[in-house]
């Protein structure tokens, strides 16, 4: 039998977006672990310690993919809102984590992320002021269709460029 996991697709929102470049996967894992230990104690920390990892962290968009064992993902999920700052080499960076989606595989999370980003772009388009901006967004919208899921890496990087 394989061990089943849950993937939490989150958005890391920092008070000052410039700090994003300094954050590594290790920092995130460390802070998430701390938060679980605080809210769910020794039991929660131990239950989530197995296979808790950051699968993907995009320093440009703040998109974060966390993995956890299926049995205990609720412990992880419920402690994420209690993270109010990241401890990064002695610095405290005020932040919060939005959970966007909970999926059973990375693939479903990816599908959701594409759909989510598409919606975000549509929102942006509404607020556009000049024609050039509008055209740029339209182009990127066309590029992120479900068909292009075959090259997921490509799509993700495309989206990032548009940020």
């Amino acid at each position, binding site marked *: 039998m394989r061990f089943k996991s849950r993937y939490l697709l989150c958005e890391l929102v920092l008070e000052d977006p410039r700090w994003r470049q300094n954050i590594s996967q290790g920092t995130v894992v460390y802070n998430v672990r701390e938060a*679980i*230990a*605080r*809210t*769910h*104690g*020794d*039991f*929660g920390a131990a239950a989530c310690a197995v296979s808790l990892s950051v699968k993907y962290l995009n320093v440009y968009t703040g998109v974060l993919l966390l993995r956890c064992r299926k049995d205990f993902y609720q412990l992880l999920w*419920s402690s994420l809102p209690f993270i109010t700052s990241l401890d990064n080499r002695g610095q405290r960076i005020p932040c919060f984590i939005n959970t966007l989606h909970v999926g059973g595989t990375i693939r479903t999370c990816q599908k959701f992320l594409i759909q989510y980003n598409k919606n975000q772009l549509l929102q942006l388009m509404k607020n556009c002021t000049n024609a050039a901006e509008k055209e740029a967004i339209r182009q990127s919208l066309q590029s992120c269709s479900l068909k292009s899921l075959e090259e997921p890496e490509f799509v993700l990087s495309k989206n990032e460029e548009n940020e």
Partner: protein
Amino acid sequence: MDPMHGRMREQPKLAGPTSYERIVLKNPSEHHYMKVQLEFNGEGAQLSATQFKLLVVSALKNLHGEVGSSLPLDLLSFDEKTLCAVLRVCSRGLVKLWSSLTLLGHYKNHECSIRVIQTSPFLLALAGNSRELDLE
């Protein structure tokens, strides 16, 4: 037939006899009750009810964090001499409370442990423990 039947009937009644009704409640109790005793290894310490409650809450906080320590928990009675206590916890917190009591090992540098004597969803059940019937 009931021997007292005749006599009782002569009494003035407030209303007619109540009709029969039966309700079966499955898992009705919102709370679980635990009878516990604190034991020290060697010389012990004196505790007040407030200190005991704090000890239990800190045990919960150690094992189950802030979520555990915020469980609805009441210390219904505490005997300072025997260190016996009756705890009330909401039903979904029973396992959490029990596990933290098990792993409790220290109070102010004294080694200690908590013995669970009885647990029940009914407070009334704690009043009569047949396992304590002592005929020696």
